[in-house]
């Protein structure tokens, strides 16, 4: 087991290198750079071209006049001591900008992942044990609906409806009072928890729909196995047969799917954050892309991929722990 984990971690390193190259290249794709925009802006402001010299100096300072591979190496070289470059727009270290937002991103994603599974597994079991009855048909229909509705639309609708009905604005993760407060107090934490449930439900909906269907069909397969018949023949209660004998086996593929559902959850978090103005890295990524603030956008893209790799790793370890039949050597 330990060897397996070590090998998986080692294998992730070349992936990380490749991902950092891809992220860097994608961020370099747009013609021009942030300073081109800045120059145009300065020219409009002062109406002369003296800003060009200033821009040249800036370009030199940020190393934008160096060739691409050199800039990449400089960017990656900084990672070792936690330097991810500087944001042009904010004129601050990328690290300082994204650190707290990254925390909220992870919080929202993990919260949504847990909620997805907490909801999907019981619903899937319920759906399978009521196969083709109206409960199952209703859940199937809802699952189709859930898979078809884009997350940002659900979010928009929920925000509008809740505001119209109760007059409660659901934007952001904090009330204005706590938004301004620096540092953490018990009041701020409970305020965060009060705001957290809406985004978590919205992000989870799409995932719940799909996973519930998988759980349903897995359980239906397992319920046809001979050992289930044996359990029933022993005179065990149906609930024990389903939950303790069948569901335990049917859950395993879902654990390995955890790694696969993370990208969707991260996508959902990104777009929802932009719509509902949540302090995750999503809105910052959009802004960074629009401003061609490349180190900012590139670092966010990189971190999102790193989160996925870690998620996949954890899912594999969880599977190894949950299913003793799997051998790793």
């Amino acid at each position, binding site marked *: 087991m330990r060897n397996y984990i070590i090998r998986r971690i080692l294998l992730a390193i070349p*992936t990380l290198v*490749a*991902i950092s190259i*891809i*992220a860097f290249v*994608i*961020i370099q*794709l*747009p*013609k021009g750079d942030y300073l081109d925009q800045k120059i145009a802006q300065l020219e409009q402001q002062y109406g002369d071209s003296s800003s060009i010299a200033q821009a040249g100096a800036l370009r030199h300072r940020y190393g934008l006049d160096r060739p691409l591979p050199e800039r990449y190496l400089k960017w990656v070289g900084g990672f070792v001591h936690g330097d991810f470059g500087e944001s042009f727009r904010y004129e601050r270290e990328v690290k300082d900008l994204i650190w707290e937002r990254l925390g909220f991103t992870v919080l929202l994603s993990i919260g949504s992942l847990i909620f997805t599974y907490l909801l999907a597994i019981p619903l899937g079991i319920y759906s399978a044990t009521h196969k083709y009855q109206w409960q199952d048909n209703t859940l199937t229909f809802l699952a*189709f*609906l859930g*898979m*078809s*509705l*884009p997350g*940002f*639309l659900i979010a*928009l*609708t929920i*925000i*509008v409806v809740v*505001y*119209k009905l109760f007059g409660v604005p659901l*934007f952001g993760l904090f009330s204005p009072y706590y938004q301004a407060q620096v540092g953490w107090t018990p009041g701020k934490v409970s305020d965060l928890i009060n705001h957290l449930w809406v985004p978590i439900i919205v992000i989870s909906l799409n995932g719940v729909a799909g996973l519930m269907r998988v759980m349903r069909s897995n359980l239906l397969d397992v319920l046809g196995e001979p050992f289930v018949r044996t359990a029933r023949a022993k005179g065990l209660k149906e609930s024990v047969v389903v939950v303790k004998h069948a569901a335990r086996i049917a859950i395993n593929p879902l654990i390995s799917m955890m790694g696969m559902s*993370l*990208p*969707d959850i*991260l*996508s*959902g978090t*990104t*777009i929802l954050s*932009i*719509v*509902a103005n949540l302090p995750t890295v*999503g809105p910052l*990524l*959009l802004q960074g*892309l*629009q401003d061609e603030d490349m180190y900012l*956008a590139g670092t*966010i*893209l990189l971190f*999102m*991929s790193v989160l*996925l*790799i870690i998620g996949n790793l954890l899912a594999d370890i969880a599977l190894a722990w949950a299913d003793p039949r799997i051998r790793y050597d």
Partner: protein
Amino acid sequence: MTNMNPGSTANMQIEDELSEDPQALDRGSLSYRQLVWRRFRKSKLAIIGAGILIALYSLSLFADFFAPYSYITDNMLNRYVPPTHVHVYDTKAGNLRWPFVYGLKSTRDRETMELSFTEDTTKTYPVTLFHRGDSYRMLGIVSSNLHLIGSDGPFYIAGTDRMGRDLFSRILFGGRVSLTIGLVGVFLSILLGSLLGILSGYRGGWLDVAIQRIIELLSAFPAIPLWMSLAAALPAGWSGLQVYFAITVILSLLGWGGLARQVRGKVLSTRDADYVMAARAAGASHWYVITRHLAPTAYSHIIIIATLSIPGMILGETALSFLGLGIRPPMTSWGVLLQDAQRVTVVLHYPWLLISSLPVVIVVIAFNFVGDALRDAADPYSN
């Protein structure tokens, strides 16, 4: 289904199935396609879904005729008009009459300076079929100004947007982009996915390893952020058509990996089959084996995955355009329309802007129904 043939192949199953499915008799003599079709049409949801899709595609293809207005006709006096009510009961005369609409009366709020609209019951305009309205050149061929339905009065059944353009007409026209982007994108994914999948499975070796690593790498990025990054790189000066195709390429860039994997698996399982060996031994070229023996076994797989991945692409385009990174005005798509609804404060004042989300949801559900039934039907020999 005419060639009833209670031949020996079916005899074994007759006793089991005669009672519940009299058509099982001639199963042995039907082609694969007929069997798939027979099972497919058993799913009512899939038939409904297919019907909805056909209807929506024709509505947007002939949007010039079906929409009451053109998609760029603006009217600054009629900005943010709520959906028009079509009346059939004339309160003044107290009788039923041919559907009609009232005129608009606008009042400006003293404090907020916002215009609000009410019905002007002194003016009535009948709703007419084959109405003469904005002129157009349908598909660049037929010039006309005939619209299926319209009125001389304000006829905005889904309201108007911030430039006084009819939302319903814009939804029909927007469907042209939103509905086709999924098809073109899936076509590209199929091309790339089946080509690389077959190559990967058939050639094997380092090429296989390389392709599989690339697929793994692509799946290490979350879709929306990667799409956003790529879409943001499109030059600002590009024409609408260029952006359209660039977006389809971006969307299919992530879509082909899953397909390639499935095709590869299918090819791996058939590559060493006896009939393929026989073909090779008989002197068939690699090209012949791939196109005649390997590709056909993967067809049904490819079609199903394609159908099931169209909704994702439609949603992808909607999300990108919604964020302002996708299709650019004056071209319109459902995502572009929803862009107006991006600010919650705007939606609170003008909730009908959310109507543009309905077609997205309907189309995605319809494709899911059809794809789901196709998946079940693809293996018609199972019970």
